[in-house]
């Protein structure tokens, strides 16, 4: 049997991604393009919320969307049809999340001329996307009422990396024992600075607050 030589490495597997993400963030800053990374469980209402919100802000901001999906392109088509804005599909090749490199490939496929805001709809999942910095200026997530108000306790990392938590599907609240105040207090435990905006993407209730948050964010970031 051969003798074995040991080479010490001591390197986190996330390290390269963090460097890629930091580089992408700097480049986008230089171009004046604000990237928002939007995460949630499958079906929490990302696409529906995006359509509602974009229709409210598209006169004030030039917006583009990147839809990450394991395979299909239904969401990218839906966004384009419902809002008329530039929208592309990113195929993740079976991956459960997007990393900074895949995000960059998406960005490179967009026409960024005049674009102020790019929104990335990440893969539906509360675990993996939280671990991979995409290079976005900010992270946001949508928690929908049927998922339960205890999710910030069960998926602490996701809630700690998000600056905004949208609580969606408040129209069905009477059928679930979802306590918005309790949920807010759990979110604050994970991230004292997170903003929480309750909405119903189906009817559009509360979406103005979300639209204002986005416009304010982009403005603050451009001036900083």
């Amino acid at each position, binding site marked *: 049997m*051969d003798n074995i*030589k040991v*080479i010490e*490495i001591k*390197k986190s597997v996330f390290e*390269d991604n963090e460097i890629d993400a930091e580089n992408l963030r700097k480049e986008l800053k230089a171009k004046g393009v604000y990237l928002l990374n939007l995460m949630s469980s499958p079906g929490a209402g990302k696409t529906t919320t995006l359509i509602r919100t974009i229709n409210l802000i598209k006169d004030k901001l030039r917006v583009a969307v990147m839809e990450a999906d394991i395979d299909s392109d239904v969401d990218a088509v839906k966004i384009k049809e419902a809002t008329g804005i530039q929208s592309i599909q990113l195929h993740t090749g079976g*991956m*459960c999340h997007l990393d900074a490199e895949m995000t960059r490939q998406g960005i490179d496929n967009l026409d960024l001329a005049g674009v102020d805001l790019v929104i990335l709809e990440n893969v539906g999942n509360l675990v*993996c996307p939280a671990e991979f910095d995409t290079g976005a200026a900010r992270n946001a997530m949508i928690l929908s009422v049927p998922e339960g108000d205890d999710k910030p306790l069960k998926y602490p990392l996701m809630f700690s990396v998000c600056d905004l938590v949208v609580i969606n599907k408040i129209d069905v609240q009477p059928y679930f024992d979802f306590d918005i105040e309790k949920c807010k207090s759990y979110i604050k435990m994970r991230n004292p600075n997170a903003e929480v905006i309750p909405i119903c993407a189906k009817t559009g209730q509360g979406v103005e607050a979300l639209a204002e948050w986005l416009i304010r964010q982009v403005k603050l970031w451009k001036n900083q």
Partner: protein
Amino acid sequence: MHELGIVFYIIRDVKQAAAEHGVSKVSGVVMDIGEVSTIVPEYLTDCWRWAADKEELLKGSELKINIIPAVTYCDECKSEYETVRHGRKCPRCGSERTWLLRGNEVEIKSIEVPETY
């Protein structure tokens, strides 16, 4: 699946390290995996077998996993405790002003190379 993605990152880093050290064969890769890192060790080794055998450098190599126990620190009473057993709340003083000290690692510790390579 989460673990397969992680395996691709490990392979990329190991290839890079092998190139830097002028190594053409790796027989083992030692990982430090935190207890609360969300990685399932058995899935990771299964994915490793599948993906590593497709690479000349890594064919037949073993992925060895050290589990790093998770430890939380309490800011209130300045003590440490086992995360998995007690969760976020400090078992000594009941405070929730606590943070994870270790246990979230997904780290390549070392690679093993047969001496003839």
